[in-house]
């Protein structure tokens, strides 16, 4: 079986702290933005913008920080929120976007953020 980057990248995550939600043999996205975030992260790693492992380090750190500051039964846990934050960090660190651009992105968020 030819191992494709996409497959290799995702299977590396399985059983690890950053294992993605899945259902019936496929990735499981609750919202379109989650799919968008996952697709961007895979694409940037595939293109060599950043290393998949470096992105995963950001993701595992994001997850670890959330767990350290929340009760593990806290229902506000959201895998893809952590994923999106890790993606923003990895994209910024790689130089693909700069922090100013990211800040202007974040201005799109409602003031309550």
């Amino acid at each position: 079986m030819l191992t494709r980057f996409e497959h290799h990248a995702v299977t590396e995550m399985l059983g690890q702290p950053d294992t993605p939600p899945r259902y019936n043999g496929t990735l499981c996205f609750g919202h379109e933005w989650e799919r968008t975030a996952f697709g961007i992260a895979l694409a940037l790693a595939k293109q060599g913008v950043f290393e998949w492992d470096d992105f995963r380090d950001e993701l595992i750190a994001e997850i670890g920080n959330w767990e350290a500051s929340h009760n593990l039964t806290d229902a506000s846990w959201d895998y893809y929120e952590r994923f999106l934050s890790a993606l923003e960090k990895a994209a910024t660190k790689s130089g693909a976007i700069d922090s100013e651009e990211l800040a202007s992105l974040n201005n799109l968020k409602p003031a309550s953020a």
Partner: protein
Amino acid sequence: MANLFEYDSDREKQSAARAKALEALLITKGIITDKTVDQVLDFFETRMGPFNGAKIVARAWMDPDFKQKLVEDTPAAIEELGLGDFMAGAEGEHMRAVANEPGVHNIIICTLCSCYPWPVLGLPPYWYKDPAFRSRAAREPRAVLKEFGVDVPEEVHVKLWDSSAQIRWFVIPERPEGTEGMSEEELAALVTPESMMGVALAKAA
């Protein structure tokens, strides 16, 4: 906290806006295109996944000769279906199908690693990598099957197939009763990844 639900939908909106803005920025900078996300996820959504296994099993249900070939020479039979050249063994691994039949129930496990026939089954569920599942399935498969809701009668022989780096097994479940008039496509919709792992039965919807 009184407004918990409003807060949640707010968070969703924020996240959606951030993801969309990031994608738009990367498109503007020429790093990705508006097709990139679809292209990269197409791999999981249309090329490699349990829909392949479902097509293979549905064909086997329709065509006894194909089923026979699928068991005897799995790669050659799969090739006939033209699911894509990515099914070919580039790493020396082979997929092998085993068929459930009256008196025999098959279950696939992997005690040493987590080899998984992903081109036909997609991504494995959480528990597949769990050492407890792997060792218990080998030691007491009937008890494990019962927990999955599959009650295997005493007289039915349970066969375990332990995948390795060379051979990755999958199960051809039995065609459910009451599906005689169904088309191949309708049959494929009844085939779940779990039924191809042998921890569930295919059921008429």
